[in-house]
């Protein structure tokens, strides 16, 4: 539908594992110590080729945050979330930054990531207290 506007990144790229759309650069990783329902998640400074969902208040491991889910423009699958606002001062550094779930993306070497079968039910997890 329509001619999708896609940015092509150069360098070591993380891409959507379903449609290979470029999502982010390895150099833009701020932290690798985040978690989500499927295992590891990385905090990125910048992510491209995504659309955003509705704002939600979510209770994370580090407190209440306002987040929007982010979806790949190529195939529409959910790839992570973006922090819109953090309610605690210590977590403010996350505002405007993105989380990509490692399970949803292909790494720069094309490597997949096997989800940890943890029983972390429901929603996202969070972590990393910088």
């Amino acid at each position, binding site marked *: 539908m*329509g001619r999708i506007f896609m*940015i092509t990144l150069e360098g070591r790229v993380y891409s959507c594992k379903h449609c290979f759309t470029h999502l982010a650069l390895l150099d833009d990783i701020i932290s690798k110590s985040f978690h989500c329902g499927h295992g590891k998640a990385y905090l990125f400074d910048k992510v491209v080729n995504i*659309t955003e969902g509705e704002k939600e208040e979510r209770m994370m491991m580090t407190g209440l945050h306002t987040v929007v889910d982010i979806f790949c423009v190529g195939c529409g699958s959910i790839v992570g979330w973006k922090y819109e606002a953090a309610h605690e001062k210590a977590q403010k550094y996350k505002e405007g930054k993105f989380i990509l779930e490692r399970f949803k993306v292909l790494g720069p070497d094309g490597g997949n990531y096997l989800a940890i079968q943890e029983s972390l039910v429901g929603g996202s997890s969070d972590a990393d207290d910088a």
Partner: protein
Amino acid sequence: MGGVEDDEPASKRMKLSSEELIHLSNGSTVKESIVGSSRDLMARPLQSDGGEEVVGSKGVIKKVEFVRIIAKALYSLGYRRSGAHLEEESGIPLHSSIINVFMRQVLEGDWDESVATLHNIGLTDEMTIKSASFLILEQKFFEFLNEEKVMDALKTLRTEISPLCINHSRVRELSLSIVSPSHCFTVRSPKQDTSRARSRTKLLEELQKLLPPTVMIPERRLEHLVEQALGLQRDACMFHNSLDEEISLFADHQCARDQIPSYALQILQAHTDEIWFLQFSHNGKYLASSSHDCSAIIWEVDANGISLKHKLSGHQKPVSSVSWSPDDHQLLTCGVEEVVRRWDASSGECLSVYEKAGLGMVSCGWSPDGKWIFSGVNDKSISMWELDGRELECWKGQRILKISDLEITSDGKQIISICRETAILLLDREAKVERFIEEDQTITSFSLSRDNRFLLVNLLNQEIHLWSIEDDLKLVSKYRGHKRTRFIIRSCFGGLEQAFVASGSEDSLVYIWHRGTGELIEALPGHSGAVNCVSWNPTNPHMLASASDDRTIRIWGLNNLSAKQKDTHGNGIHYSNGGT
């Protein structure tokens, strides 16, 4: 102004203002006027004795200035008696008496006296006095030459003009014209009349331009103010889209909404998949559309409506854009990261295929003379070809890879391309100068105005920015309202004098803004899928076409019931299917 009297020290240089005029006309003892003019003796005491009197509801128009420009207008219309009567009745002289003296001296050719008067007017700017003196003496010089009094002319040049020490090149020209009179004709700037001494009235006009406007009111000042107001009214009229409107002075100009194309007059169904691009030819007689179905279609525009002319098949990939040759005889089509094809518009035949081994084309366009074509390539370069397929040049520069609009100005001088996520490069091919439009957001597409002076830039964050690209790069306006989250949505200029901006949108509406004010005028419903591209007929301000994911093209026009139109096609909506 009774003015600086002859026996007053010349150091008393006062800046003239109408206030002075009032005060001195207020019966102060000005016994010795320079020349007795009857107007001076009839000085009547005016009402204002402090602040200036104002007219108008906002209190910004000074009465004295107002009356003076009316008097000036009466004189220039030829109503001398009315003008004089107005001056008398209002007690507000058009010009101070010294100016009247000055003007008369110029018209009668009393050159030396006029130069002397010039010094007495009370101008503060030395340069102005010198330039005005120069003009007067130049006239004196030429009139001498006219009368064959060469020695007098020479004397004027040596003893009066040269000592002013300004405009040396002109002084040289003048001396040349003594030596070779015929040279005088070529020496004169084109603006001056061919007769050697221009008329004295023209000289007066030139002088008036030099002197401050409060001293000598500019010619046709009232007309200029009225035209300015009319111009502002016209610019503020958001729906102004037809030449028929005549602007009257009696009421503020405002068009009705019905001049904007907002009725779907035709729906064109021939593509079998999403339509991504469409564009009218330069002469407005054809429309070309390109689609995800790997084809392009040429439609013909005539009085009965729009009909399918040719279906251009051959691409193996979706066709992302088309480009009409400057003479509209040929069409380029570009497959997504594939090849560029050149077609004959009247026969529908494919004339050439342009490709590069292992690479794909992403955009295409024509040189202004139609002799070569250029194309963006997905290895970040721009290639240029002769029509027969020979590659001319390949420019490798800073460009982003895949989605990359590319335009060339109609004078062939600048190539415009998206070079970084947030920047557009304007490359001057001759001067090899690069300029950049920098944005904060990612740029998705752009389009160039017909006069090459403006660029409409579509951004990721659902804003359309209008940039002036002529001299300095300047952001002029922003347009908002449409929706864009995933696709390339295109916008365009259009309407009478390109006074409107139209855009597609992901919410299936066609958006139209007034370019000058940025106001959203219309959001037209009708399509059942994202509207990817719009094109406004360059020769018909009442015809707008839109291309959508719903596989149709909609042609928008004026309501049938409106009287004089060029593009009504019967009642209701026409559905046109492709083929016979």
